[in-house]
């Protein structure tokens, strides 16, 4: 098992890793529930961070989804 990439989990959730870094961390996550749960926590925090910009789309957009 590789060392846990703890320093990169936040950047992964943020989408800020370059492709090769992301692939390496993703490979680790497939085998590590601990780091995967960390990524889920970072993602949850980002969802709250982003929620302040929520705004309703035009009603007509729904018909195009």
């Amino acid at each position, binding site marked *: 098992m590789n060392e846990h990439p703890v*320093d*990169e*989990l*936040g*950047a992964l*959730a*943020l*989408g*800020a*890793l*370059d492709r090769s870094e992301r692939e390496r961390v993703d490979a680790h*996550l497939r085998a590590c*529930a601990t780091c*995967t*749960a960390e*990524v*889920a*926590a*970072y*993602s*949850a*925090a*980002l*969802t*709250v*961070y*982003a*929620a*302040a*910009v*929520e*705004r*309703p*789309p*035009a009603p007509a*957009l*729904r018909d*195009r*989804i």
Partner: protein
Amino acid sequence: MDISTLPIDDEQLIVRVARQDAKALGDLYDRHGRLVFGVLTRMLGSPESAEEVTQDAFHAVWQRASTYRAERGAVRAWVVAIARNKAIDWMRTKGKRAARELELDAGAELVGASQPDEEALTAIRDERVRAVVAELPGEQRAVLELAYWGGLSQSEIAAHTGVPLGTVKSRVRMAMVKLRDRLAQEGGGQ
């Protein structure tokens, strides 16, 4: 009792979308469309572009629903991540990226973007987010905003700002740890 009227959670909806249930996709849109559209409007700078990319994003949700993994995070976070990736693709292909990437002072906009008719709980949450973001040292807030709203990777931030990559990484790490510690408990729902 008609089981079809029972409320279902996002994970059940995603399973239905993976089975190509169009109504389930519409339900997901009703739950998360406001967030997706808001994030995309902020990233792309125009409602017209945001509408176009919102369509792309939900089309990708339709195609990729079977790849959703609950252990990686909530459906809402997954949908937003897909939408952000679509926005980054859009910025690259349309060449709109440079105009927005150095817009550092997103904190004020984050506050200003709140809808006047939002419920009180939402206002309290937004106020908490604003306070947490405001507590970040400016250089950490800047990398967070460049990455989240500008769609830049850490190495792109380093290249554009002239800040060493190692420094950018440590700023991102510290900003994310603070967000997680202060906000993650509130993000598990919906």
